[in-house]
């Protein structure tokens, strides 16, 4: 009984800026579920919330930074990862989480994403992937499947999309997972693992966007997307991320794909630092 009360008092509400609610997200949007999973993951991973910093870029998912009662930074479009890089390198005790969308992280910010993964910097990236630019009215995104309808692909998308788990793992990420917002529990566990994991972690969160992407692709309600995720998701932990392509109305491979040990950027920097200081000492002796 006491334990139950304890759980109640540990509600995620204390991590939300109550004075900023209601939020701007549309009915049926998946960002709230992803945010809830993240906030519960802080407790699940028993991370000191004082040491958590949240960085977002621009877009619907970019608004997450504004709703969390944590040190939080709402930056420029595409630049959440390099801003977070400065935070991580400025204070190695921080647990920095980038929370943003597919357009922000993978289109305008794509270069920063692959370089952060290459560096294996201690950072968790939560990418809410809804295949389009929701905030600006549903234009095509870099992950939109071929043939998908958006407000700028009225004849169907004519560009092949990025497979995000494959991109992140090929770039060097230590931890890569994908879940849909239907998989709220698995998502929470994945975020907790990612936040504890040293090095670069990337989580692809497949999420509905009912008023624009959904409306144009036969999923006008959030629930329609949930049905789709339920029918088409295939959980395969350890799967080769190369196989995680998403086709229009096709299966969605989910699970934990990558969980490897690799020296992090801070591991390398500490070596650089001791080499530099040895050199100073050697010079002082001469």
């Amino acid at each position: 009984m006491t334990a139950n009360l304890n759980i109640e008092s540990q509600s995620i509400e204390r991590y939300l800026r109550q004075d900023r609610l209601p939020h701007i997200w549309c009915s049926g949007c998946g960002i709230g579920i992803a945010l809830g999973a993240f906030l519960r993951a802080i407790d699940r991973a028993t991370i000191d919330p004082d040491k958590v910093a949240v960085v977002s870029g621009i877009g619907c998912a970019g608004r997450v930074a504004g709703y969390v009662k944590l040190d939080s930074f709402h930056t420029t479009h595409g630049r959440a990862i390099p801003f977070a890089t400065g935070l991580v390198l400025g204070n190695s005790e921080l647990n920095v989480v980038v929370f943003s969308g597919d357009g922000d992280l993978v289109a305008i910010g794509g270069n920063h994403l692959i370089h952060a993964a290459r560096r294996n910097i201690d950072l968790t990236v939560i990418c809410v992937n809804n295949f389009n630019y929701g905030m600006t009215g549903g234009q095509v995104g870099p992950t939109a499947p071929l043939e998908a309808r958006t407000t700028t692909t009225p004849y169907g998308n004519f560009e092949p999309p990025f497979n995000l788990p494959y991109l992140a793992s090929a770039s060097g990420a230590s931890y890569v997972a994908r879940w849909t917002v239907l998989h709220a529990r698995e998502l929470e566990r994945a975020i907790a693992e990612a936040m504890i994991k040293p090095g670069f972690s990337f989580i692809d969160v497949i999420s509905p966007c009912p008023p624009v992407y959904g409306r144009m692709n036969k999923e006008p309600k959030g629930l329609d997307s949930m049905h789709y995720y339920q029918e088409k998701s295939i959980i395969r932990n350890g799967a080769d991320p190369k196989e995680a392509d998403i086709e229009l109305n096709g299966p969605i491979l989910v699970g934990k794909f990558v969980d490897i040990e690799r020296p992090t950027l801070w591991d390398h920097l500490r070596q650089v630092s001791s080499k530099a200081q040895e050199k100073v000492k050697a010079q002082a002796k001469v």
Partner: protein
Amino acid sequence: MNGDLACAEGAISAGCRFFAGYPITPASEIAERMSIRLPQAGGVYIQMEDELASMNAVLGASWAGVKAMTATSGPGFSLMMENFGLGLMLETPCVLVNIQRAGPSTGLPTMVGQGDMMQARWGSHGSYEIIALAPISPQDIFDLTILAFNLSEKYRVPVLVMSDEVVGHMSEKVTMPRVAPEDLIDRPRPELGSEEYLPYKPNANLVPPMAIAGEGYHFHVTGLTHDERGYPVMTAEAQDKLVRRLVDKIRFNRHDIIKYNEFQVEDADIIVCAYGISVRIAQLAVRMARDEGIRAGLLQLITVWPFAEEHIRELSSQAKAFIVPEINYGQMVLEVERCAGDRAKTILVPHMGGSVHSPQTILEAIREAAQ
């Protein structure tokens, strides 16, 4: 040592412990020096994937509580403008060094220019005021880099060091005194606890105290127009209040920020107004003019932004003419002209870049004005 190295040493002396940059001629030597010095000093050097990322990493490091800097030149400066604006909006102390080369575009990568002076002032979108300093020698860039850090911390604003290729690459003697802790300024810190603290409630000098990440303040900052809590507010009233304060915190404190030097200005009726490397050539030209009996003087702008407008106005009642040599086709001259009004003539001596003026060119302009 050369100006680029002196700049890096000035930064280390100022307490800079983070540098993020991207290689670019003629500023790369600053990055190279920082990559040696920062790990020795317990700091972090990182080469980012581009200048967009470099500027952002500098902002992030500053919010982690570290004095941070980047250095670049023309093309990189253009890319940094995006997040220079974020730095202004979040009121983030940091230093951005521009070793100017001649543009536009790729221009003359290895050769001098002063064509980014107006970009420095207006290159990021929106209304704001900035601080920019212009060094004339390796010694000067050492000293002004320290001043840049102090001003950026005091006023919570990214400060620009607008140098140029000649200053960056010339080698001269540099004296590096041990900088005492009391000579270094740190950002104002919150005195209230996390419940009462408001991230953008300003002190009397219009600068708000700054919390840093990881201290338990759980603050929010955004590039959106925001109120004193740091929360986005999408109204004309909030915009008015915020933008006025961002501008006024520099304008109201201008007497502390604006610095200049004068040579033989007391009795001068022809005043050469110059900044950066052009000061040194102008000084020679003024001396030559004096030898010819012309009452010429030199005003050196150390702080180029905010512009020394009251002082130029004052001098315009004494001077017949201002001569403005610039390695561009007329940028700061517009400011001089605006402040001089019709009280004194303003004459531009332009140079398109690739080399500095010859003293004769400036002397001829002085002679012509004296007639």
